[in-house]
């Protein structure tokens, strides 16, 4: 489990009827003209704080959506949050030279720490991700060792 040494932030893409909710707060007359809204946060020192703020922002919009047939899918990046060795290995893919790995989980971006997708009637209306700024990732061995230490404790 890695603790990122950089600050964190979140981005939320809002479409469909959820975009109408956002536009309606600012400019009711143009609701039909706005295709999508994108919310970008400030930087936060703590990823926990960034995640909580993202959750709060999503919650405000979600509360105004028609609650019928809403599905919420949240994913946590096993590199940063408690996970099994299998979870970590499933998020990696060997590069063609077989000497290194690339991270394919979380849409291939190793710096995305968490994501939340909200669908209504199978239409994706909110896509949110919380990420940290880039830093040099430790080796897979170090990540797995850190994971083992966490479990031993």
């Amino acid at each position, binding site marked *: 489990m890695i603790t990122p040494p950089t600050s964190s932030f979140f981005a939320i893409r809002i479409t469909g009827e959820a975009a109408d909710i956002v536009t309606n707060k600012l*400019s009711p007359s*143009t609701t039909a003209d706005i295709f999508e809204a994108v919310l970008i946060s400030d930087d936060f020192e703590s990823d926990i704080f960034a995640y909580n703020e993202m959750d709060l922002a999503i919650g405000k919009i979600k509360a105004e959506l028609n609650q019928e047939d809403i599905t919420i899918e949240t994913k946590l990046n096993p590199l940063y949050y408690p996970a099994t060795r299998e979870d970590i290995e499933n998020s990696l893919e060997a590069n063609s030279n077989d000497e290194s790995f690339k991270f394919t989980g979380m849409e291939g971006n190793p710096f995305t720490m968490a994501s939340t997708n909200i669908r209504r009637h199978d239409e994706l209306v909110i896509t949110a991700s919380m990420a940290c700024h880039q830093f040099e990732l430790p080796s897979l061995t170090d990540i797995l060792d850190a994971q083992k230490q966490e479990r031993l404790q």
Partner: protein
Amino acid sequence: MNIDLDHSNFAYTATIKLSELPKCKTQEDFPGVADLAVNSRNFSNYFDCTNSVKNYMDEVVKTINLDMANDHQFMIQTEVNPEYSGVDTKSKDWSTSELARLWVFEADQAEDKMIMAVGQARVFMIPREPSNNLH
């Protein structure tokens, strides 16, 4: 140069820097959010697009001004790409596809100071594809 009204679609993007509006009540609706951006649908008619972006920005500024009471009041200033208007603008980084910019800034900023914008909208021309279905 003339805007190709017959073979283009039009769209706009608008961003408000909520982080620069600390007393704005709208921030309560979007906790932790620094920038709020919207992208419009594609318009087949240039005037529908410019009316929409103007309405959007007018209503946003009205909302902000109401939120801020008399502490700070904001206004809009428009620039048109000099390539189409022949009139020089403060912005120099125009691309051919960008037609206009609407800036939101505090109304009582001194003329001699650098103006700090809290919002911006940009109107773009998009080449029309034959199969492009519009609303």
